[in-house]
């Protein structure tokens, strides 16, 4: 049906796919900023933003009102505001790097998506084909590698702003990013130890991990989140820190730093930072879900294949690859959004740590814990496989 697509030259195809993903990520990131406000409001027993409205749409009898109440149109309003506000450039900054920093923030945020598969379908032979921009063998590594470049935006922004608070913020940010990257990496290793049994083809790709979580049987269908709760926990905490989310947003910590490295930023440039942060969150949540949350499997012990088979009993088109693909993407996206909701939920629950506490947690608590965890699983896996 879509064979023509595969006849397009690879480069163009890749560009198309990349654009498609960006087209999805960008709005989601924008929507997240809205969602953040909504969730904040809900948790504070408020309805949240619900006034903005677009002509025509609002006139749709019931649905329009619903959208308005949901605050959907505020996304546009906010985005429009950011785009069209006067984009001022303070006089004391290093212009080049000042402008460069938000761009640098965006690049890794969007590039990491390349390595993350976001769905799967079954080909004619019943083989699982992941959907993603680049089915990399070393997906995990690629994500880590590229996202580690994100630190430059913080450093550059802070330095280029040429004023104290941003600089302090950038120092904090980069130290925090580098600190937590360690525990994060170590936390992920048990998963790959488990996946890469001897004799199988070694990989650090995500698809295999998901495949591993969709096997039949009690252990097979178990998501790694249940199998390795500590790993999942460490990864999660590190993810919070990496994305500078509450309770780890000492970087921003408006009470002592005004705003972090983006104190001097405004308008569109500031918006880019904002979007980059949400993109990070999205990709991070995606990775978390792939590794610990079963990827596109709907439920623990219920794999995508099972689900499709079940659906097949009353939907004739259930096995069509297109449907399976969309279904899996939907499941995956649902999980990611749930994760993002979790992010927000935590944000309005926990107070912010002090900077020294952040460092202490990273180096003195999380790192030893992750090492112990790694050792435990390494030994356990060795014993099991014997």
């Amino acid at each position: 049906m879509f064979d023509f697509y595969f006849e397009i030259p690879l480069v163009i195809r890749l560009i198309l796919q990349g654009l498609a993903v960006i087209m999805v990520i960008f709005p989601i990131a924008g929507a997240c900023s809205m969602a953040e406000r909504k969730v904040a409001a809900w948790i504070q027993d408020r309805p949240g933003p619900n006034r903005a409205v677009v002509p025509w749409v609002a006139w749709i009898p019931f649905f329009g009102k619903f959208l308005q109440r949901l605050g959907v149109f505020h996304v546009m309003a906010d985005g429009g505001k950011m785009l069209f506000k006067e984009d001022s450039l303070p006089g004391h900054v290093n212009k080049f790097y000042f402008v460069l920093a938000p761009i640098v923030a965006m690049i890794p945020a969007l590039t990491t998506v390349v390595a993350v598969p976001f769905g799967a379908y079954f080909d004619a032979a019943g083989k699982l084909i992941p959907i993603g921009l680049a089915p990399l063998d070393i997906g995990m590594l690629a994500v880590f590698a590229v996202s580690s470049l994100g630190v430059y935006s913080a450093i550059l922004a802070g330095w280029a702003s040429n004023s104290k608070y941003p600089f302090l913020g950038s120092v904090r940010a980069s130290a925090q990013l580098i600190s937590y990257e360690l525990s994060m990496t170590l936390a992920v290793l048990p998963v790959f130890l488990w996946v890469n049994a001897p004799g199988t083809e070694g990989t650090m790709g995500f698809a295999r991990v998901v495949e591993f979580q969709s096997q039949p049987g009690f252990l097979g269908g178990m998501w790694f989140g249940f199998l390795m709760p500590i790993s999942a926990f460490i990864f999660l905490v590190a993810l919070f820190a990496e994305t500078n989310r509450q309770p780890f947003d000492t970087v921003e910590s408006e009470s002592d730093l005004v705003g972090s490295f983006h104190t001097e930023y405004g308008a569109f440039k500031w918006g880019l930072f904002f979007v980059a942060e949400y993109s990070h969150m999205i990709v991070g949540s995606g990775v978390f879900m792939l590794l610990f949350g079963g990827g596109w499997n709907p439920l623990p012990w219920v794999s995508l294949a099972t689900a499709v088979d079940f659906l097949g009993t009353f939907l004739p088109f259930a096995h069509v690859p297109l449907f399976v693909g969309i279904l899996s993407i939907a499941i995956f996206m649902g999980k990611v959004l749930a994760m993002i909701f979790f992010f927000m939920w935590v944000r309005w629950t926990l107070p912010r740590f002090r900077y020294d506490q952040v460092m202490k947690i990273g180096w003195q608590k999380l790192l030893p814990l992750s090492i112990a965890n790694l050792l435990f699983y390494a030994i356990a896996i060795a014993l099991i496989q014997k």
Partner: protein
Amino acid sequence: MAVITVERKPLTFLERTYLPQIAGGLKTTFKHLIAPKKTLEYPEQRPAIPVGYRGVPTLVKDPNGREKCVSCQLCEFVCPPKAIRITPGEIPADQADRAHVEKGPQAFDIDMLRCIYCGLCQEVCPEEAIFLQNQFSMSGYTRAEMVNHKDRLYELGGTLPDAHHKWDKKKAAEEHGNAH
């Protein structure tokens, strides 16, 4: 007075991980998340204004629809931020029912950008002509709009349903010839 040192109870392991507490916090916030919203959607919904609320100062008329203010300027005098400006004037001749009133305000302006809602004008008014009523929102696009003129004040204030009928009595007295 003996000092009693109360030892802080040592934290258990679970407490030291803070995880149960965090979970508890999440639970609490989640409860609020799904709890019914307590917001008053204001322009559509209005709060119930309690009795005795002191909002925007207004001028009132007596039940007969006459201005109560006699432009004695006490309120103007007492107003701490000098928000009130009164231009006194004669009672026009055509107002037969007020002919016995010596004066009435020609213009009565309250600058709401200045008013501090202290209520002194109401306190001081001998004629009980000025009241702080339940109107609480004032808004406008220009400064000029924020000055309440006399007609606006009366519009806001309405009629005070008092049973004094002072001017009626005065008129009657005059007519009876025992004025003063």
